[in-house]
């Protein structure tokens, strides 16, 4: 049964939800203890609200009025529903890992020909049958963030991938989060990707829903460790159902001389938040993050990045673009900290927002905290409408208003999509943007 929250009861329903679910959640002993600790941490704050600085634009207390029950394991019908949606995301040759309603679905997954030196396990397996080191690593995300804590308490499944030293994957690893949406449900997942030294991999994550999915909530988190001299390319596409919530976190740590290139695009979900913490733990490393929000109707999407330059000689580039129509609301919060030792840091952040209607909103909050003196840091932001003279040129050549806008939006977003190195993944992102554009035409 759905529990409708009165304002002053906010979070109470979630507490009940945990109490009910606790016994069904995988992992005993230390894992169960860690879950309890996490839940207590969550309860101290409850659902985040706008008086918390980090959440001032995304007031979950106001936005999240219902707490659906924990999703049931998918039955045959749910799997079938999800399978149809998964097809749209298929990438030739990719190793595909599909989670349906937060549960690993072996039948929809494809791991054939997986390179030697790569191990893939489910989160459930790791929590239930052990590997203390992995379990500890799975609980590294900081419980100070209430939504991370809630996820730590409730996580039911996910994938745990380890890449041994020296292994370079030729094919992308694809994790698809599919919601069957048969009934409103809450989904809690966590995944881990550990790259050893001298490795290379590409990870693509897609969040999708079966046709006609009911309002559901997807709570996900990702823990990534990139070893020395390793490179990870990452693409994240949020195409959740238009009634859905997607609350996701990522914690990424880079060793020395490592490279992390990440692209994220949100075109789905009613309300979404992606909070990522990227920490440079070894010198000479580089991060490029490119983000895009494509929003219309009353969509709300918040990307909150925290770039932690903890060591010297690292570089980071953040580029974020938002296209907002109707009463959509895009939020970008970019915090960069350069710690006292992190000399020769080169950190830049740029945001651009395109507002397509008078009611569209884009909030941008850059925060630079610089404690080292020999650094290059900067940020910039622009907000504007589509250029009227360009629109007129296109219309004078026969394009309708929507077609002309679509071409200019594609161009605007295309510059970010260009940052995706893998051709197939670039196509996947272009197709996702295209679906958003076609839906508004």
């Amino acid at each position, binding site marked *: 049964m759905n529990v409708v929250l009165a304002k002053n009861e906010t979070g109470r329903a979630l507490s009940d939800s945990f109490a009910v679910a606790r016994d069904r959640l995988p992992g005993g002993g230390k894992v169960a203890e860690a879950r309890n600790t996490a839940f207590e941490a969550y309860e101290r704050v409850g659902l985040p609200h706008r008086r918390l600085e980090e959440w001032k634009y995304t007031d979950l207390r106001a936005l999240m009025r219902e707490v659906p029950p924990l999703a049931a394991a998918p039955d045959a019908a749910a799997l079938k529903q999800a399978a149809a949606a998964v097809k749209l995301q298929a990438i030739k040759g990719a190793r595909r890992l599909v989670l349906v309603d937060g549960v690993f679905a072996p039948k929809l997954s494809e791991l054939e020909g997986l390179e030697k030196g790569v191990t893939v396990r489910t989160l459930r397996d790791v929590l239930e049958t052990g590997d203390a080191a992995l379990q500890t690593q799975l609980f590294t995300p900081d419980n100070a963030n209430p939504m991370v804590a809630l996820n730590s308490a409730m996580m039911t499944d996910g994938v745990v991938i380890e890449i041994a030293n020296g292994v370079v994957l030729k094919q992308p690893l694809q994790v698809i989060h599919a919601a069957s949406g048969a009934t409103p449900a809450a989904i809690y997942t966590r995944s881990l990707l550990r790259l050893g030294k001298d490795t290379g991999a590409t990870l693509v994550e897609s969040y999708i829903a079966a046709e006609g999915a009911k309002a559901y909530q997807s709570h996900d988190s990702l823990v990534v460790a990139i070893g020395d001299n390793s490179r990870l390319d990452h693409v994240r596409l949020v195409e959740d159902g238009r009634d859905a919530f997607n609350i996701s976190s990522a914690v990424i740590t880079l060793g020395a001389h490592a490279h992390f290139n990440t692209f994220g695009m949100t075109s789905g979900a009613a309300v979404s938040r992606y909070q990522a913490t990227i920490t440079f733990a070894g010198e000479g490393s580089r991060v490029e993050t490119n983000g895009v929000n494509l929003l219309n109707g009353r969509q709300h999407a918040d990307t909150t990045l925290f770039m932690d330059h903890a060591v010297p000689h690292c570089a980071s580039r953040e580029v974020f673009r938002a296209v907002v129509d109707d009463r959509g609301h895009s939020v970008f919060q970019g915090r960069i900290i350069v710690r006292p030792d992190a000399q020769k840091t080169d950190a830049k952040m740029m945001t651009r927002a395109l507002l397509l209607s008078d009611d569209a909103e884009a909030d941008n909050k850059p925060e630079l905290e610089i404690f080292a003196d020999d650094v290059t840091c900067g940020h910039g932001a622009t907000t504007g409408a589509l250029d*009227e*003279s*360009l629109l*007129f*040129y*296109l*219309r*004078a*050549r*026969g*394009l*309708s*208003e929507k*077609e*002309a806008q679509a*071409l*200019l939006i*594609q*161009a*605007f977003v*295309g*510059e970010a999509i260009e940052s995706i190195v893998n051709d197939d993944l670039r196509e996947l992102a272009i197709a996702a943007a295209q679906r958003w554009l076609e839906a508004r035409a």
Partner: protein
Amino acid sequence: MPLLEVRDLKVRVEDNEILHGLTLTVNPGEVHAIMGPNGSGKSTLSHVIAGKPGYEVTDGQILFRGEDLLEMDPDERAAKGVFLAFQYPVEIPGVATMNFLRTALNAQRKARGESEYSTPDFLKKVREVAKSLNIPQDMLKRGVNVGFSGGEKKRNEILQMALFEPAVCILDEMDSGLDIDALRIAADGVNALRSPDRAMVVITHYQRLLNYIVPDFVHVMSKGRVVKSGGKDLALELEASGYTQFEDAA
């Protein structure tokens, strides 16, 4: 029936009246030249015909084959066959020229209820036209007009005109920025499109263009009006004596 009829057109921009009652009738097969000093309202007229926002028509009419053009959106006008080669074509970064050309051509065809071009047919057509205008293929791979020289931008306008095969072509200073060879090639491109059911309105400051594209009528615009109309010899007369004689007439 005339192809294009501008009747006593009055146009304001913000609070200034720019066109003060302009009349122009263009029949199928005709080539009209419009000359006139800077700021006399030539581009304003071309923009209003194409449907550019920001202009307020306070009086008069524009009819295209008897239909009220002012009631139509710019894309509707384009699909019906109104084409403006801009005096200052804009650069559109990130929109590949080929993609733009195909989207535009197919949008016009769709609006007219015609079938869309297949990719091979489209490519063949563009290549032919580009070749005849001496436009290198790699120019078409770039963003629309991005990094094009002034002359290249103008040639890209003529390319589009040849591709879309409009009924009325308004060429706003297509000769500015073109070197002598490019001018001849572009003019040849325009002449190739002359036909009994197509009309051209050529806006220019220079008689030289009219040696290549020989007009049936020449109109002199001054201060928002047509102050004199005549045959092609009028252009020669203007070349010799300038516009001062018309300043008072306006």
